[in-house]
C-alpha cells in the first residue's frame, strides 16, 4: 500500500498513476480484511474497479482532446 502511494505521488504519467492507484486500493482492501470486516471489503472491492474505469475513461478522453488540439495548432502554424 505504501509503495502504491509513493508511486502515485512520484510517477508523473497519469496512466502509470492509475496502476499504482490500483495497488494502493489493493493494500487498503487487505487492511480491511485484516480487521475482519468482510462486508466493507466486499463493497470496496466492487467500487475500486468502477473508480479505475472512470479514471481511465477520463484520461483517454483528455489525451484525445489534447492530441487533436495539438494537431489543430500544428495546421495553424504551417
Amino acid at each position: 500500500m505504501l509503495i502504491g502511494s509513493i508511486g502515485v505521488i512520484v510517477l508523473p504519467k497519469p496512466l502509470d498513476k492509475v496502476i499504482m492507484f490500483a495497488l494502493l486500493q489493493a493494500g487498503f482492501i487487505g487492511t480491511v480484511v485484516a480487521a475482519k470486516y468482510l462486508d466493507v471489503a466486499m463493497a470496496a472491492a466492487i467500487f475500486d474497479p468502477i473508480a479505475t474505469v472512470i479514471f481511465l475513461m477520463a484520461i483517454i478522453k483528455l489525451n484525445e482532446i489534447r492530441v487533436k488540439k495539438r494537431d489543430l495548432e500544428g495546421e495553424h502554424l504551417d
Partner: protein
Amino acid sequence: MIETQIWFYTGIVLLVGGSIATAIGPGVKDPIIRTLNTEIPAIGLSLIFLTYNHTIALLTYIAASVIITMILLRVVVRMEEMGAEL
C-alpha cells in the same frame, strides 16, 4: 491493539503526505493528476475511519468518494474540451 495503531499512523501519514502531494506534488499543474492525487488522502481517511470502527461511515465514504471523483473528472474533461483559460 498494536495493529490498530499501525493502521492509524499509516492513515495519518497517507493523509498528510497525500495532501502535500496534492498541493505541491510533481505535475500538479495538470488537473487530472491533482485529482488522482486526492485519492491518497482519501485512502488515509478511510484507514482512520477503520481504526475508530466507524464502519458504516466508511462504507458510505467509499461509495461517495467514487461519485465525487466522477463529478470532478466531468468538470476537468469539460474544461479541457472548451479550452478554458482559467
